[in-house]
């Protein structure tokens, strides 16, 4: 009973905040709504005993990705009037996608997949089952190759983005800090006899 109540709370809040992302006029508010949405998604993971995924979702998405989003928005000057100008232009396409999705959802709901007996009922595991350990073991044994390939791709993307944005500016001033720290009085002050 308590679990259902919490599920409804998290699911409802994530839908509401998802709507808030799209509907709010202020981009900063949109970002805050998106953060709330991620929190509720993490709450849903917690309800499914997947505490590792829940915490990682907060750590990566809320702690790192959204901060970058916010940086970009703070630097941009968003013109609200210009954003609203395109509204009618994109309405037909967006509406079409919405209608297709609605038809799909209704069809799926009517097909009996979500009927009472058809849904899988997962039992809760005890606290001694540590899903961090389970995920680690399976990632580093069964799926090791895929995991390593993903890591290499990420590394290449990381280096690529640095290379693309690096401009070796020759006119900028650089300071050699270890030289600055190592400086002694004799290097700067000279005693002259008067």
């Amino acid at each position, binding site marked *: *009973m*308590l679990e259902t109540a919490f599920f409804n709370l998290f699911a409802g809040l994530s839908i509401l905040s998802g709507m808030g992302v799209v509907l709010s006029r*202020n981009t*900063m*508010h949109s970002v*805050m709504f998106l*953060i709330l949405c991620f929190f509720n998604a993490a709450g849903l993971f917690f309800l499914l005993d997947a*505490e*590792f995924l829940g*915490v*990682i979702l*907060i*750590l990566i998405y*809320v*702690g*790192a990705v959204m*901060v970058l989003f*916010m*940086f970009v928005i*703070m630097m941009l000057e968003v013109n609200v009037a210009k954003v609203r100008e395109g509204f009618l232009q994109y309405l037909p396409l967006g509406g079409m996608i919405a209608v297709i999705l609605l038809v799909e959802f209704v069809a799926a709901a009517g097909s009996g997949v979500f009927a009472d007996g058809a849904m899988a009922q997962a039992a809760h595991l005890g*606290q001694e089952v*540590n*899903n*961090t350990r389970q995920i680690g073991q399976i990632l580093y044994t069964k799926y090791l190759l895929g995991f390593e390939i993903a890591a290499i791709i990420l590394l290449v993307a990381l280096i690529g983005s640095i290379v693309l944005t690096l401009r070796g500016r020759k006119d900028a001033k650089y*300071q050699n*800090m270890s030289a600055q720290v190592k400086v002694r009085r004799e290097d700067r002050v000279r005693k002259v006899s008067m």
Partner: protein
Amino acid sequence: MSTADMALQALIWALEILAIAAPVALTVAYITYFERRIIGWMQVRKGCNRVGPAGLLQPLADGLKLFLKETIIPTRANKVLFLAAPLLSLVPALVAFAVVPFGETSLFGIWETPHIMAISNLNVGLLYVMAISSLSIYGVLMAGWASNSKYPIIGSIRSTCQMISYEISMGFGLVTVMMLAGSLNLGDIVHAQAGGILHWYMIPLFPMLIVFFISGCAETGRTPFDLTETEELVSGYYTEYSGMWFATFSLAEYGAMILISLLTSILFLGGWYAPIPALDIIPGTFWLLGKTAFLIFVFIWFRATFPRYRYDQMMRLGWKIFLPWTLGWIFVVGMFIYTPGLDGIINFWLAWR
């Protein structure tokens, strides 16, 4: 579970939360007092000694003063986010205390097995603390942006860069602890360090202890790294704040300082264990709080001792010194664990083999 059981459980949770949040708030008030007295002592002057005996009522007087001050909201500020920002920085600092184990108790022999004294003994406790403490960035960012003023926005961007940079080396420092303890549960990490001072992780991970503590200093914006919120730079991101909302920011800062000290004692200094096993007759909570109090003293000591960093020097320290050091130490620990011959040395600290 019946309704009565649920109500009882909720009451227990509320009491547990209160039992941690209230002492934290009180400690924050008195840390400000001790900070002023200790810095006064180090600078050969008196410090505050007027309000009450030996100035002991000074924090209460300060609180009253801040409470009675007018809250000024700039006209062009975004009102909702302006008022939400201090709360956004306070909440993560307090929520992170939920997984901190304050010791182990069998409640005077009533329970058969000793229980860990934490609100929630989470299996991913260490990751939880990292995740929650990374949220305090939002308070800083929001405060700068919502003030709609030049100095706060520059201050908040600088402060955010600083926090992101040092979070990375902090996280890698924690990876070495995980490698030795083989667990993310804070209680298990302390258990892995049982048996006297030689078993504490500060011995094999001494460079990581230094990196973690200094990064914590930068993360909370304490003195050698407080260049984003100093008076000369118009107080950084909270230029426009006054009264209670300003006090909320400093409450969050001191709360984060207590948390970093607690975590350092738990992860590197053996948590609730005494340096010599024979001294374990003194309850573990006293040991943990004693270590934490010492680390808080070290924070204040730093403030009285070190001059402020320049911004580019601080970035260099984070990215070019701490990050390679932590990555290198992960490599060294990994090499010791899996090389035959060398693993005999590290087995002394390895809990999971």
